């Protein structure tokens, strides 16, 4: 129980350790854009963290870069383009849908379809196995036994 409540507390406290520096924004929209961008960009040093989560030097520099570009009035798309021009699609936690990333997006769906298809095939085969197949002779014997049972 203690561990469970600790987990809950840590989960609730998540935003507390995501923002490291204090940033001053003129408009709330800019702050929103900043928050969403830093949670969408990957820190390439510690590959399974966003630049919001990471304390690596590169993550700090990239957060500064995002902040400065927003201050210059650049749009979210412009900042995302800036990052992908330098670091490639891998820098995005949500890569754009294109030919190169098609398998990434459609792969899970493909596997789901294969799974569903297999389940369907197995169910069909099971059904045909269960079907009662008694010869007329066996059928007669069965009813004879059943009748006998009734008489006892």
């Amino acid at each position, binding site marked *: 129980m203690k561990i469970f409540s600790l987990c809950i507390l840590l989960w609730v406290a998540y935003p507390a350790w995501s923002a490291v520096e204090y940033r001053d924004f003129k408009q709330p929209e800019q702050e929103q854009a900043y928050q969403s961008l830093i949670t969408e960009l990957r820190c390439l040093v510690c*590959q399974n963290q966003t630049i919001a989560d990471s304390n690596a*030097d*590169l993550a700090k*520099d990239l957060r500064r870069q995002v902040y400065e570009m927003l201050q210059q009035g650049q749009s979210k798309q412009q900042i995302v383009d800036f990052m992908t021009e330098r*670091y*490639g699609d891998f820098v995005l936690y949500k890569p754009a849908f294109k030919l190169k990333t098609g398998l990434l997006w459609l792969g899970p769906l493909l596997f789901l379809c294969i799974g569903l298809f297999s389940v369907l095939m197995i169910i069909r085969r099971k059904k045909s196995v269960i079907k009662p197949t008694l010869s007329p002779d066996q059928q007669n014997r069965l009813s004879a036994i059943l009748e006998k049972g009734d008489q006892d």
Partner: protein
Amino acid sequence: MFRYLLPLILFITLAVFLAIGLKLNPKEIPSPLIDKPAPAFALPILSSPDKTLKPSDMQGKVWLLNVWASWCVSCRDEHPLLLQFAQQHVLPIIGLNYKDEPAAGNAWLQKLGNPYDISVMDQDGRTGIDYGVYGVPETFVIDKRGVIRYKHTGPVGPGDVERIFLPLIQQLQTEAV
């Protein structure tokens, strides 16, 4: 017969994919900068900070840009190899002293030897971002027209010079400007 072979085929396919996946290095991210012009910079030179160097100063030469720092442990691994390579005088080697203290950078070169023709200082890491630097050391091969032709992430290994760098450099040096 096929019924029994199918799981085997599936298993082998999966095993092959997993084996390839194990061999891949997740730290090696293909750079989108290959075949693009080297991003511009004008950075102070480490040994004489009042002078600056720009990539356009290297126009007409095939050159190497090696990103290093005195705090970088893998750079120490790579260093002897780079010194050896510099002695062959195949091409100019420019160092990008990335997010380092000038004093620490100079001391490092004095202690371990200086393979660089020139080192420039990128103290706040902005040029590093322009070059998509994420794991020091990194090495770029830039051609006579100032286009990035190859990028190596992490320390250059003993075999890499003969296998990758020298053939590529020789090929690039025969290209017209």
